[in-house]
């Protein structure tokens, strides 16, 4: 008697014809979600940590202001003087009336400096601010 192994007659192949479609879908998703306009940050900073944080839902409203360890201030792509904050932010507010200013301030900065910036923002009527922090776990 001869025993022969039975082989399944079905093909053992994964259909790959729809692979490009699936990948293109993924690609499209990432293309839509990507924000390529990244600003070069010229200052070095370490954000403070906090627990009671909120997420900013609408990224398009956010405008950033960096303050580095050495108290240098950056808005957009340039380092600026603190007196210039008012004019720049006033211009931004003209474009986006309900702009949220995200303050990315180094943790070692003195409050006096932060207050000066806040005073400038108040003069520019940018009243919605957000102290950027990392989430403490």
């Amino acid at each position: 008697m001869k025993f022969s192994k039975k082989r399944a007659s079905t093909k053992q192949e994964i259909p790959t014809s729809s692979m490009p479609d699936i990948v293109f879908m993924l690609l499209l998703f990432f293309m839509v979600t990507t924000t390529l306009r990244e600003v070069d940050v010229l200052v070095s900073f370490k954000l403070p940590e906090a627990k009671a944080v909120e997420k900013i839902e609408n990224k398009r409203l956010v405008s950033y202001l960096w303050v580095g360890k050495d108290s240098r201030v950056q808005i957009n792509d340039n380092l600026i003087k603190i007196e210039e904050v008012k004019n720049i932010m006033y211009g931004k507010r003209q474009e986006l009336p309900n702009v949220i200013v995200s303050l990315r301030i180094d943790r070692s900065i003195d409050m006096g400096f932060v207050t000066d910036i806040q005073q400038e923002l108040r003069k520019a009527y940018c009243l919605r601010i957000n102290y950027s922090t990392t989430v403490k776990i």
Partner: protein
Amino acid sequence: MALIKKKKILGAAIPTGSMADIAFLLLLFFLVATVIDVDTGIGLTLPEFIEDAETVPVSKDRMAALLINENGDVLLDGNVISIPQIRTNLKPRIESKIELDSKKKLIVSVKTDRKTNYNRYIQALDQVKLSYFEVRDEYSESKFGRKFINLSKEEQDDVKEKIPIIISLAEPEAVKK
């Protein structure tokens, strides 16, 4: 005599075998280039800038005066406390004012010195926010049986009206001049 060259017409098809590879490469590029960082932080609304702002007297029991001095000490109504204690002190005071009308809610006044460290200030502000969030959560649980974040928009507004977050940023002395 026929001078027209005859071309053999092959099946005019674009080879699609490498399509997946190309798409994968593109996908990889966007995966690497994407920065999915959600902005997190402590939100605040600054008061409007008015020259010679009027000062309105506020009754003592409405106010919780929080002072963070240049050494990093935290003083709540003049008593030195540690940072985690801010929450345990503020929570009962917020809770006691839930049922009062909107002009009698607690105001937390945060004041700093010009030399106060920013990190210290954020830690204190975080505690204040946290105590408000916890009170909101507890109130929502007792009233609606769900956490604040899971409530509908109307219910959230209702809780927000009951427990508004009022944080007043006092200017450091030197700014006034």
